[in-house]
């Protein structure tokens, strides 16, 4: 029969043991950090959950402005083509050296994603999320914080362009993104 103090000691010993094993693993250098080797499932889950929860919390109070102005599409289109298309692709392009080589792989923002129900709500949340990600970037993912060099208005213009990007043909894309 183990007493209460015995249980507490066992718990403390377990915590110390797990901590020691974790620290040993951390410093051993065994974990592969190359971008050509995927994360293990637990690490991937941990990082994805951390990322998604953090973005959701940080972006939930962002007020989305009207995004239907054609001027926004032209401004955002030119910036998207300059800053984003290399990784996030464009109509008619399935991959690029960057989209293949980066890990995690950048999402194909020109691809159509089916949204089931509650489209309007999803649109707003997606807009908030995209604005936040473009502005602040994501650590250790290759996504820069464009907010350091671009004001909110230009970022919203990119968000506006992203909403219509999956609907564009390659020719429409060329027109909207050409700088004249």
């Amino acid at each position, binding site marked *: 029969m183990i007493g209460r103090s015995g249980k507490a000691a066992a718990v403390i010993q377990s915590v110390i043991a797990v901590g020691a094993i974790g620290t040993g693993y951390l410093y051993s250098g065994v974990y592969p950090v190359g971008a050509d080797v995927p994360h293990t499932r637990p690490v991937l889950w941990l990082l994805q959950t951390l990322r998604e929860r953090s973005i959701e919390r940080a972006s939930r109070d962002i007020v989305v*402005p009207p995004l239907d102005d*054609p*001027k926004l599409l*032209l401004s955002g289109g*030119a910036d998207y083509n300059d800053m984003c298309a290399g990784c996030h692709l464009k109509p008619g392009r399935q991959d690029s050296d960057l989209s293949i080589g980066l890990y995690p792989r950048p999402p194909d923002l020109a691809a159509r994603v089916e949204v089931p129900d509650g489209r309007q709500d999803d649109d707003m949340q997606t807009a908030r999320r995209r604005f936040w990600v473009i502005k602040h970037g994501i650590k250790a993912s290759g996504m820069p914080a464009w907010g350091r060099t671009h004001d*909110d208005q*230009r970022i919203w213009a990119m968000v506006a362009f992203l909403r219509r990007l999956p609907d564009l043909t390659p020719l429409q894309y060329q027109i*909207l993104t*050409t*700088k004249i």
Partner: protein
Amino acid sequence: MNRRNFAVVTVLLAMLFTSAARAHDPAEHAAEAAAPDCRALGDAVNGPMDRNDPVIQAMMKQCGEAADRSHGHDGESPDHHAAGSGHSSEQDVKAQ
């Protein structure tokens, strides 16, 4: 004399490097003139077209300005690529 030449070279190099800091200024984009391929707009005009669609409106605006430029009516600078410079109608977007 050598010191003066060194100073001149240093200033020129500094100007060269600092110019890169404006790489994302919308005004820089205007210098890289290119022509939009407006065949898609022609196709849209010939087919069913929703003139209230912001994409169609943006394409018409873009192609209209390109046509004006090609005809030499480019006295005014385009404002749509300067949306971030604080001169457009979306100026009231608040900082998040």
